[in-house]
């Protein structure tokens, strides 16, 4: 009976039990862009998201300051954001922010948090925060934004965890 229960509970290939519900494992997983639940924004274009993650936009439409929260270098989530959204490597991204702060065009540098839980809790606590976590690390404490009208898991969603193979 126990064996039957284990077999019944075993997730299907490509899915795991991490987080609040079923989510795809790394191979098929996407990155969710998360904001505070009080943020009125529901959807961003990939261009708008890029501008936010490059510090070129510093305010939400409601006037609140955007607080960007990122993960440290080497984390797969950060690599995915740099590759898919910023289209920069680590060195160029760091130089971009250093230069932006120096010229004054970037108002504040991003906050770096080392764990998805930390990112989620930060976004939960700071009304203007925006960050990213794997879909498996999302829970109800934060809001997942649509990117170009698509949510993680939708077909053609543009921020996969792993690099897309060139066709």
């Amino acid at each position: 009976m126990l064996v039957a229960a284990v077999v019944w509970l075993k997730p299907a290939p490509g899915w795991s039990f991490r987080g609040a519900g079923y989510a795809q494992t790394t191979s098929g997983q996407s990155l969710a862009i998360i904001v505070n639940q009080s943020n009125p924004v529901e959807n961003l274009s990939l261009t708008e998201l890029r501008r936010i993650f490059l510090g070129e936009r510093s305010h939400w439409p409601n006037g609140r300051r955007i607080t960007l929260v990122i993960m440290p270098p080497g984390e797969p989530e950060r690599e995915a954001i740099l590759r898919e959204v910023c289209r920069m490597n680590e060195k160029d991204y760091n130089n971009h922010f250093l230069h932006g702060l120096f010229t004054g065009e970037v108002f504040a540098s991003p906050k770096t948090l080392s764990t998805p839980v930390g990112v989620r809790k930060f976004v939960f606590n700071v009304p203007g925060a925006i960050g990213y976590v794997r879909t498996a690390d999302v829970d109800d404490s934060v809001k997942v934004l649509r990117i170009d009208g698509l949510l993680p898991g939708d077909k053609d969603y543009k921020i996969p965890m792993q690099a897309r193979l060139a066709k």
Partner: protein
Amino acid sequence: MKSSIVPLTRTTLKVTGRIFKVLPMLLGVLLSTRVVRAQQAPDPADQDKQTIRMLLERVEQLEARVTQLEAARQGRPAVAPTLVTQQASTPAEPETETQAEQPSEPERMDLSKTLLRMRGFGDITLHGDNHKGDTTSFSLGQLNLFVTSDVSEKFKFLTEIVFEAGPDNAVGVDVERMLLEYSPSDYFNLAVGRYHTAIGYYNTAYHHSTWFQTTTGRPFLFDFEDKGGPLPIHNVGVSASGLIPSGRLGLHYVAEVGNGRTSRSPANEPVQNLVDENNHKAFNLAFFARPESVRGLQAGFSVYRDVLSPANLPRIGETILAAHAVFVRPKFEWLNEALVIRHAPFGLSHVFETPGFYTQLSKQFGSYRPYFRYQYMNESNREPVFPDIGLRHGPSVGLRYDASESVAVKLQYDYTLLRRQEAVNGLALQVGFTF
């Protein structure tokens, strides 16, 4: 067994005998202690009052502390990000207060955020050329301390403090930028203090950092005032900037009002930090576009207007028109700027125009970035404000090698043609770094 009992009995007797000897003494000590205690102990009623008084004092202290903490907490619009950052690994308690919109609250200084952040830039150069009077020298470049602080959610402080050796080899200190910025939205940012005038592109792109620049130095046109540059690079006043709603065109504006440059005497400090020599203020208006469709492209123009008051000369109207088109990506850059400086003495029909331009091209190959620049500036010999600049033009070629993410080594050759003088060949080897 007996042998064991007898010694025990003897020992017991010995101890008992000693106790009997010591007992009167112990009783005496005990009695005297009780007497002393009885004499020192206060009345139980007094003791209770004292205890109650102490407890009341403690309660008052705690109430005061709670009031203080509540006041501090109400003044904070959200959980301080830096605090959260430090406590990222610990679970954060859900707090509805932190999520509440509090737009009507005044801006408060958040002590957890107003920490100074400092970044440094520096460079050291070995330079030599064949210009008469010049010597081959090692030169300390500008040691630039770039300091920022988030005063509150909408206010930020920024300064560039530069230590630099002058021609007399003495090191001096200049506050090159000092700005308090107010940023309520992407469409309107206000900064007051000393800033770099938004004339063209280069001046506000590289400021006082050699490390950020591809080349060893700035174009002639954008040389600093104390190096003989023709532009009012610095200004003291107010600057407003922001986005213009323009969709994918990405239009921006910059509007500045400041004291302008010193003109009364070349010996004076070129930037009017404290006192303007006339009541007229310098105005600058700039527009530029960063279209979404061509990432890295920026094109724009600016108009600068001031009135100069040189000693023993009529007042001079100064107008600087500048235009730029640059394409900057991490691995490639192409900078193009052109401007004209117009000096129109009041009461004279003649206008002195100084045109200038430069183009700069570079491409990154791994850690190496070869570059090329051609620059041109032509000032009339009768130019009333800067008679000693004249004609200068020529190419520069160089190679930048990024030895690490923070250190760049540059080798540059300059060939500069001058009016009625021998052309100058110069070679510079520079180490630029950030720390």
